[in-house]
């Protein structure tokens, strides 16, 4: 009886380990995640082509891409904590992809603003960026994301060595500014940006606590 239970437990655990450790290692898994990340893009593009984005399709699309830019930033920021907390090492393989998707959605957010909102009127765009603080901040986010995207290759990682880590810590201020951008464009209902801010606070708070703890541990080791 007892043995049976143990067997069951072992099988269960084996299954669990398979899901946890080996499934993500299968060759189709990464392309699948890649396609999943493209779904929002596909949704808005097909919606635009089939005129299903409502009475103000330009607004729907620009907002949608901006939302997903922020979602991917937050997903990207939750990879390291999830990896440590749940002991899922393979998650790290997805961090670059998610980060680049954040950049992708921010890029098409900005592009659709330039294209459909301003119709490539450079003067108007510059005026808008200077004049409207929430657009200024959004633009700064975009600029700050550029070096991160450019240095995302393995070659760049090797070249920059220690500085690569330092540089990529930029993602913290970028995420804060991205949410500020969202808050500033909100007229009255802060529920959604508030929830996103809560998530960001948890993700950054986790890192802060870990840093403090590791400092304390170091200090103890010295004394």
């Amino acid at each position, binding site marked *: 009886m007892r043995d049976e239970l143990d067997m069951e437990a072992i099988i269960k655990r084996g299954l669990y380990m398979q899901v946890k450790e080996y499934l993500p290692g299968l060759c189709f898994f990464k392309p699948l995640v890649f396609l999943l990340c493209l779904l929002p893009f596909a949704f808005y593009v097909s919606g*635009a082509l089939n005129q299903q984005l409502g009475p103000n399709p330009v607004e729907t*699309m620009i907002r949608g891409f901006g939302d997903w830019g922020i979602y991917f930033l937050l997903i990207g920021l939750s990879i390291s904590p999830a990896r440590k907390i749940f002991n899922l090492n393979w998650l790290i393989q997805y961090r670059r992809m998610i980060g680049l998707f954040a950049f992708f959605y921010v890029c098409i957010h900005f592009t659709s603003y330039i294209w459909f909102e301003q119709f490539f009127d450079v003067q108007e765009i510059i005026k808008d960026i200077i004049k409207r603080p929430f657009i200024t901040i959004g633009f700064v986010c975009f600029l700050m994301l550029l070096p991160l995207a450019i240095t995302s290759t393995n070659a760049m990682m090797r070249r920059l060595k220690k500085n690569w880590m330092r540089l990529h810590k930029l993602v913290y201020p970028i995420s804060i500014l991205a949410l500020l951008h969202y808050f500033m464009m909100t007229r009255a209902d802060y529920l959604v940006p508030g929830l996103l801010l809560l998530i960001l606070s948890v993700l950054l708070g986790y890192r802060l606590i870990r840093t403090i703890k590791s400092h304390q541990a170091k200090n103890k080791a010295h004394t």
Partner: protein
Amino acid sequence: MSIIIKTDRTHNFEQGIKSSEITSESAYLNRREFIKQSGLLAGAAWAGGLSLPATAGDSEYGNDFKGLIKTPYGKGESLTSFKDATTYNNFYEFGTGKKDPAANAQQFVTDPWSITVEGEANKTGTFHLEDILKHAQIEERIYRFRCVEAWSMTVPWVGFSLADMLKRFDPTSKAKYVEFETLYDPKQMPGQKRRVLDWPYRDGLRMDEAMNPLCFMAVGLYGRDLPNQNGAPIRLVVPWKYGFKNIKSIVKIKFTEHEPVCTWNVTGPKEYGFYSNVNPNVDHPRWSQATERKLGTNFWEPKTKTQLFNGYAEQVAHLYKGMDLTKYF
């Protein structure tokens, strides 16, 4: 129903007799029937007069107002589709998303409905909507509607002149402003469960603005009863001001000596002034007001240039003579 205000202050509109003394509530005409009849009468009076066909969207027209008088207002304008005008709304009482009002307002009870009139007027009290409509000449006007968020639409409203109604309340010489208030009823208006705005929604006009013939009290659109998401049963339409001045589901009208409190003005005093006239030359911190996007236009279609006073300058510019419109925005 909680809306009906069963107090002794329920007066008959003109005679000042308590309406409860003349008709029992159940004996009131169904409002829809009532409007149809009055429309018919008015239509007969106008027989042989103006009858302009709408320029577009005829198939989307309803027939809730028989013999509806068509006026020259907005002749030749191309209309926003009924669907767009009734599924893309800012009505935070039913949620802050554009689709929320259409989704959440369907169970909203607008009949019976009464409006309380207060302040600097001789005929104050609580009036049943039917009693107000009884005196109204119901007609259709096509107006451009410009939201501060830089989108716009063109809607064939059904309703009557605000000035005609206000005059019947006989405002005194102290009445310098008129304030309107939306219903506060979180049970029916789920958006009011959170304090997104300082409920109840309030807005107002200077008396001379309110008496301008353009000001309109709408009870319908596209020949249909006003959909709940558009501010049923009765809302204000002031076509030369930004959309948020067009207060919906009105339950109170107050004549005051001092500038009334306006909800958006309180929420963002730097962004939403008391006047809030459509003005492409007065910039807004969030949205450029130089252009607007008409609802229903697609990606490749250009935006439209916004006109001073939303194109109604000829009728209203005199109201603001000598005023610095960048200061009194």
